[in-house]
């Protein structure tokens, strides 16, 4: 049972990337949390949460953290009625962070079930106990396609890059309508692409920014192994070799539809800004957590070439020709970045007026070579997430 002056916040998605960072930040700030989540086949919910908190260097504070098993597909989100009523009555605010971030069209049903159909349960939970605020973690990309300036207003877009964007836009509309009807103050927080901690490089997830880098990393290792251990015949056939300075010459032409940038914010900025917005006086609103000085892919490619000791990566604006003339690396890389391509050369401008007001003009740091290196060092060190908890266990 909680017992102090901080508000009680019910948080969903605490086992995900953004949710776990929010959980840690809120606990560090003294908040009292009810984590609504699910066990997996391998681990109970409390075990999952404890493991995550250990990664943050924290122990689960028994007096301020409660975990509750839920199921969005069930009435009253799967919580027995008596418990449900008690939890609702104790909840001051709800942060809904749980989301299915899959981009795949063939997963449409699953994505909409998680991101839209599941909303009614958590919204009713908030309304039932007369919570004082509902906070929804959305995405800047609800703006959809063809919006040069993206306002901090409910989305009007009808065309989206993928099913994830579409579902989040639909979710915003559903939530806004419900909250208005139930006089429930609503804050919608829309981060762009979130990567690891800009100060430490640490991250719990390695998709988005990390995926193209990881792809190049694995491809580099394939050819280095070919050259060092198998005579390098295959490498030579693709024009790949180690140059006099020890750099791997890896001809890789990356085609992007137009010039643009990749809108990145570090997770430390995300949690600080979100914390300020949630704790702030504004009764509600929509907030873009985006970066006004986002790097281009050419910049990232340059960072990465130095980081991985490779040369030959070229960013080309325009459509790629036929597959003829492309080496295996280019063909593979091209296919691998396909889902992410629209985000790699983005021309949209994100209005941040609400965010700047609510956060006192706090800005994300510029994405420097140093931050890149810090983040990628960490990613490589934990095998792109493969050994993240094993490494943490070893460290502890």
């Amino acid at each position, binding site marked *: 049972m909680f017992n102090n002056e901080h508000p009680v916040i019910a948080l969903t998605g605490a086992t995900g990337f953004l949710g776990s960072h929010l959980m840690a930040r809120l606990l560090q700030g003294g908040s009292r949390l009810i984590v609504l989540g699910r066990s997996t086949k391998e681990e109970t919910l409390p075990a999952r949460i404890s493991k995550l908190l250990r990664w943050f260097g924290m122990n689960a504070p028994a007096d301020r953290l409660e975990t509750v098993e839920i199921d969005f597909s069930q009435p009253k989100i799967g919580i027995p009625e008596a418990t449900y009523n008690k939890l609702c009555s104790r909840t001051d605010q709800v942060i809904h962070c749980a989301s299915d971030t*899959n*981009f*795949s*069209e*063939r*997963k449409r049903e699953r994505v909409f079930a998680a991101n839209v159909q599941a909303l009614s349960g958590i919204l009713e939970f908030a309304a039932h106990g007369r919570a004082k605020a509902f906070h929804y973690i959305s995405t800047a990309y609800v703006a959809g396609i063809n919006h040069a300036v993206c306002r901090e207003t409910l989305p009007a877009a009808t065309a989206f890059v993928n099913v994830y964007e579409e579902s989040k836009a639909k979710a915003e509309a559903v939530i806004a309508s419900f909250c208005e009807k139930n006089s429930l103050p609503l804050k919608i927080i829309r981060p762009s692409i979130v990567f690891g901690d800009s100060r430490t490089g640490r991250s719990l997830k390695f*998709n988005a920014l990390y*995926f193209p880098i*990881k*792809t190049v990393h*694995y*491809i580099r*290792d*394939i*050819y280095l*192994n*070919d050259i060092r*251990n*198998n005579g390098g015949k*295959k*490498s030579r056939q693709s024009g790949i070799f180690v140059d006099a300075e020890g750099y791997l010459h890896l001809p890789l032409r990356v085609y992007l539809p137009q010039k643009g940038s990749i809108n990145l914010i570090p997770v430390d900025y995300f949690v600080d800004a979100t914390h300020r917005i949630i704790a702030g006086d504004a009764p509600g609103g929509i907030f873009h957590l985006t970066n006004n000085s986002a790097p281009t892919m050419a910049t990232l490619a340059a960072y990465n070439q130095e980081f991985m000791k490779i040369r030959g990566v070229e960013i080309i604006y325009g459509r790629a020709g036929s*597959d003829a003339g*492309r*080496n*295996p*690396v280019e*063909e*593979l890389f091209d*296919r*691998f970045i*396909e*889902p992410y391509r629209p985000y790699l050369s983005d021309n949209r401008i994100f209005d941040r007026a609400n965010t700047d007001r609510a956060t006192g003009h706090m800005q994300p740091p510029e994405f420097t070579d140093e931050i890149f290196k810090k983040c990628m060092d960490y990613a490589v060190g934990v*095998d*792109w997430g*493969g050994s993240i908890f094993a490494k943490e266990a070893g460290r502890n």
Partner: protein
Amino acid sequence: MKESARRETGKAVNEALAIAKNCRHYAMCKIDFLGGGVCASGLEKHFVSFYPEGRMDLYAALMENAIPVTEKCLEIAESCNLCGCCDYQCYFVNEMRPTKVMQALKEHLRAYVKGGGNVVQAKDDAILGAMKKIVGADWASNDPAIRITYHHDLCPHVTFKMPEYVVLPNSTEEISAIIKLLNRNKIPYCVRGNGASSHGLVFSEGAVLDLNRMKAMDFDEKNWSVKVGPGTAAFDLQLEARKRGYRVHTAEPAALVCANIMTSGLLSTFSTAYGISADNYIDAEFVAGDGSTFRLNDIAAPNLFSFRNSLSEQETIAICVSVSVKLHPVTADEGGVLVPFASLDQALDFARECATRHIGLAIGILGGEFVSSFIAPTKRLAAEAKDVFAKKLGMPYLVLLIGDAYALRSVREMGHPLIDQKLFKTLFQGLPALASAKWLDLLDEVSDVEPFSYLRLGQFAELAETAIAPSPALQARDIDPDLRPFFEEVYSRPEMSDLVWLNTFRIQSSRYCREKPCVAFVFYLPIDNALIGAIQDGLRAVAEKHGLKSEFGFITPIDSGKRCVWEYDYYFDHNDPAEIARVRQAAREAGDLLDDYSKKTGTIRQVRYVVNQGCCRKENLLYS
């Protein structure tokens, strides 16, 4: 003997006994499927006891005091020259080294004789004398060292019987005379093709007729047929047919063609094009129960084309002494592909569509257990491969399709990403490097948008080849060091990574029980996804209830996709009495489950009901 030497001897004995008791009785030591030779004494003497399989049984029997030491024991032991060719064969199949048993058998008997142990001489009786008059003195025996190797197999359901006599006739006339002799003396008998038994069907306390000597293969190319004797193994026949530019429809490589046709009826992945049961042969010759002979094509011949869907009438009515098997044409553009699927439903849809449209010669939906067992040279690698295919690559089911260039083009036009011959060779020869290949993680992410879309990349095979660096040496990396050079040479042969050759000769399918033997449920049914899903759930639940490993084996569509043949397997440890008891009970319950579905649907036919009706018309079996 010093204590340390005694301990070493004891260890060697235990190891040899463990190997001996793990022989799977697949008779792979009787065919030269690797080109490394076959046990010379077996080829000369023909009795099972003179093959490595028989010596393993003999050694186990002697160590467990099941039989006395006889003169034949000594002859059998000394007939082995420890050439080691059975190590290649058995290692390929089961990762076992029979030569250790052969050596232990020799040492055991030499020590026994040296220690003054009594060597029993089997005495001829009147029946044996009469048998010898018919087949010759070398080809009939009542010596326990001979009889013991005909008295059991790994089937968990039957009570094994020790025969009084084993006789090896070499002609129809000799078989006829032996039958008449046995009838006159009211001696029960059973018939084996090459002495092997794997399904508990051929045991008798009377006489066993082993037809291993009758290996005739008479090609009649103008009539597209080859007449084969009852001792002819599938592998040997296929080899001869291939030399002449044909293919014959055969089952497991060491299985006997006549026996296959007679007992369960021939079926394989090629059944999609070549059919089952009576589709496979033109004519056959028999010795009837009274010793008379007849041909199937005789107007007055018994109607072996009929089918009775019951267990009650399964006594064999005649001994098949030859079958005229169909020869099938082979085109130079044949090739193979593996089409991956994330679910059985999708695999069934694809297989059904191909069969309905008559695309491909051979089609088989293979589960992860079969795929990994077949392609991996060791048990450990098989376990890793299963994990890689199911988890890392998301391919719990692969549909194998063999066809000509037109068929393969059609499959590509159907739009499924696939593993072609080149990529298969890469994965096959690079298997040991796959489990640790980190780059496979990338494939999972990209597959989210479209499963296996990376397989569409024109140069994926090239990149995979660069990453894995496949080679025969890599493929043989985990094999025992002294056998490695031989296997590197074997794996370097083009046919050893050719999907068409591998599925025609099927030498790898013998690996499917490498980890443990299994009880196979084989049945015909419509390609009805819901029905197949429900039956699979039911079979799996029974196995789980009894703590048994069970796996999907394969499904092959037949008869234009109107039906399919499905194998589902329960694995058990044949040396563990408790597990044998569990698998017996589980098999009974699974049989009941299949009987219930048979009654409910009217469309399911179990191969256990086909036994000894394998000659029947497919239409009688499937639809009447």
